[in-house]
Each structure stands twice: as C-alpha cells, then as structure tokens.
C-alpha cells in the first residue's frame, strides 16, 4: 500500500476544505470495508485520506417529527439490521443490511458508504430505492436533498461533486396499509447478489393498489426502478394477474450483463421471479397490518 496522509476533521466544513485542496488525490473514508481494498489495489486516489468518522452528526438513526426516519450516512449496517422500529416499518432495508458481508463487516460498513460506492449489486440500494428514499448532500455550506435515483451515474460512479459529502438517508413515513419486502438470489450467503429486488406497496381502503414501486439490483449499470407498474396496476387487486404483470415487467426492465455469477438471461428471468415474490411478501405485510 502507498503511503498517504491521514486526516480526522471534526467538522464537515473542515473535511470538505481538505478534499477541495487536492480532490484528484484525496478520498473520504467511512467504514473502509470497500475503500481499504481500493487503496490497496490502487483503485482509489491514494495521497490523502480524510476520515469522516470524527465529524459530528453523521451517525445515528433519528425519527423525524413529520414521520419517517433520518439515518446518518455513517450509521453502520449492524445498527440498521438490529433497529426495532426500522425492522417493523422497513423490513426490506433491515433484511438487506443483514446480508452485507458477515458480522464483522456489518460492524464497520456504513449505509452512506454502501450507497456512495455505487455498486449496482449493493444490497441496501434496492430497498432504499423502492422505499422512495431521499439523500442529503452537503457541499460544506448548505445541505440539499435529492431522490436516491439521482445519486448514481453508473457502476462505481456517483453524480456528486468530488468534495460533496452524503450526510444522511431519509426514509419517508410508511403509508397506511403498506408493506415492503426484499428478495435476493445468491449462490452462497457470503457472495454478492446475483440479482436482488425490493417492493414497496400501499393499498387503498378497498385493498387495491394505491402505490407501487419495484426496484431491481444487479441487472443494470445502476440499481433501477421498474417503470410503468404503478399506473398499470393502480386500483387493481394484488392477484395472480398483478403478480404476472410485475414478473414480466421486471424481467423486461432488467438489462443485465452475464458474468461468472450468472448469465444475462438467467438474471433477467430471476429478476422477474424475485420481484413477484417481493410483491407477495409486501402484500402480506400491507394486508396483515390493516
């Protein structure tokens, strides 16, 4: 590993100033479970490492007064996985956090790091996209929020300015009669996903679809939402026909590559299957809660 200088800024402004001094040669460090190896393999800028863990206010899970939750970007997977209220309202997110590596990885890996790493196979990205999450980004002077989908440009690429810091992830409050679920396909527990899918579904008082978002991971350069499903199924029951619509549209929406883990055709087919299973789980949660 190359030598580098290591900084522990106490404020966001200080961290951003450090980055702005030499952006091409600097990187932010959160949990380090991806970055450490990127530094070792020369895949990340190596001269200046700016550790964000000393910056106040970037960690923790806080209920918002208007409903929903704010998860600090440096909150670790283990803390999300075991959080009782998140488990109740956002089981899809907790289920995804629970399969990121093994326990020692989840004790270090952060949610913000997982999103900014911008892997199309990142397990937490898929449920967060389905849940309608927004993220807060700071440039040192002000914080702006953007829909999660606008965070990613491509594999391992975000749309953020080099010095910007993703500070928090905001989960909207769960709608009445809603449910969410996560499904994942992998060869073994410790491998990354071949495909993953998440569904966030809300029903109206008659038990018909009020809103529906289906997200797919590992099937495109970024984690994607399946377009057109909500308008196709609004006002309809979650029956076999709806399941088939979700399955076939998810399969069509998938634009996967083939690699050592799975062929492109298998990934697309399983994207449909997992989306359908996640819909069934979400519907059970939405119906069971009313």
């Amino acid at each position: 590993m190359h030598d580098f200088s290591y900084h522990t800024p106490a404020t966001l402004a200080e961290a951003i100033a450090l980055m702005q001094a030499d952006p091409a040669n600097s990187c932010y460090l959160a949990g380090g479970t991806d970055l450490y190896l990127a530094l070792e393999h020369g895949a990340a800028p190596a001269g200046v490492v700016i550790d964000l863990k000393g910056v106040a206010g970037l960690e923790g899970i806080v209920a918002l007064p208007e409903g929903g939750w704010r998860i600090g970007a440096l909150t670790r997977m283990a803390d999300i996985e075991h959080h009782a209220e998140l488990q109740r309202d956002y089981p899809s997110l907790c289920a995804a956090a629970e399969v990121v590596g093994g326990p020692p990885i989840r004790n270090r890996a952060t949610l913000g790091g997982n999103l900014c790493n911008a892997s199309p196979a990142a397990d937490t990205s898929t449920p967060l996209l389905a849940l309608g999450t927004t993220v807060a980004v700071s440039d040192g002077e002000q914080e702006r929020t953007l829909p999660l989908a606008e965070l990613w440009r491509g594999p391992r690429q975000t749309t953020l300015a080099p010095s910007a810091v993703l500070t928090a992830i905001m989960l909207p409050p769960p709608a009445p009669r809603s449910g969410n679920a996560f499904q994942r396909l992998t060869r073994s527990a410790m491998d990354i996903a071949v495909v993953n899918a998440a569904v966030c579904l809300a029903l109206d008082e008659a038990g018909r679809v009020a809103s529906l978002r289906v997200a797919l991971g590992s099937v495109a350069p970024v984690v994607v939402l399946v377009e057109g499903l909500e308008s196709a199924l609004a006002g309809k029951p979650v029956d076999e026909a709806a399941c088939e619509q979700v399955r076939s549209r998810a399969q069509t929406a998938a634009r996967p590559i083939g690699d050592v883990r799975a062929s492109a055709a298998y990934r697309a087919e399983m994207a449909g299957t997992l989306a359908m299973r996640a819909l069934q789980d979400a519907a059970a949660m939405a119906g069971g809660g009313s």
Partner: protein
Amino acid sequence: MSAQGTLPLQITVNGKPRTTQVEPRTSLLTFLREECGLTGSKRGCEEGECGACVVMMDGRLVNACLIFAVEAAGGSVTTVEGLGEAQHLAPVQQAFIESGASQCGFCIPGMLLAAHALLQHDTHPDEGAIRRAISGNLCRCTGYDRIVKGIRLAAELQRGHA
C-alpha cells in the same frame, strides 16, 4: 500538504494503554502482530472474507485487516490473547477445548472472538444464531459442527459462571 510519515497513536490493547507512532497505511492487523507481538490474530485472506484476523474494537467484532491502525486511535482493542489466561481460560476457550472444536487451529482465534462477541449480547443462542455469528469466519478444515457445539457449551459455561 500535511506531512506524511508517522502519526502518534494512543490505543488500549488487551487492557494495556500504549502510546506509539505508526504510519497511516499500517493496518490494525499489522500493528497488532508486528508492533505488539500479538500473533493470535491471523493474516488470512487480507480482504475481509475469512475472519481469521477479527478482533474486538470498542466492543464490536471487526476485521483487523480492513482497518488502519490510526482509525483505532483512542480506542480499545481485544485480541484472542486478551480473552483469558493460560491458567484462567475464558469460557469460550475452555468450551472449544472440551468440544474438540479446533483442528488446524488457524481460524480458531477469530472463531473465539466471534463467539465472544455473540455471547456478550445473547446468553442463550440457538444454532441459527451461532451459525450467523460465525458467518464471517471461514474454517478450511470445515470443522464447523464442533465449533458450533463449542459455542453452545461456552454459553452454558458462561451462564454457570455468571
């Protein structure tokens, strides 16, 4: 540009405070093995897959191979050497011996720490909880059954000791 070279490091290792200088690129694993002489934490895959290097850092099980020693500044680290003493083994160590949980032994320091981390917050782990707790630790002898048995016995011993 700020200076490269070494940084001061204050850290508590197995209960003993230490003050030293390290290069920022030094991993916590290298620091523990080469600076502290604590070779119980093993250098396995060095990419966070095998768990042979895991230690407790500020109460959490972590991969020492994916952490820079400077990130542990001000913190407290426990390695397998800090779990018990030869004349007074920790319950997990005693239970692994009694269960024949160790074959080649390379994974065992990590397994012991993973078991220790589990038993800190779950005194009655079922088999599923035990297997999840060691899911970040590979045993290439594939001796998992004895290890699981050892952790179950450790929970019993620990409850007896409490």
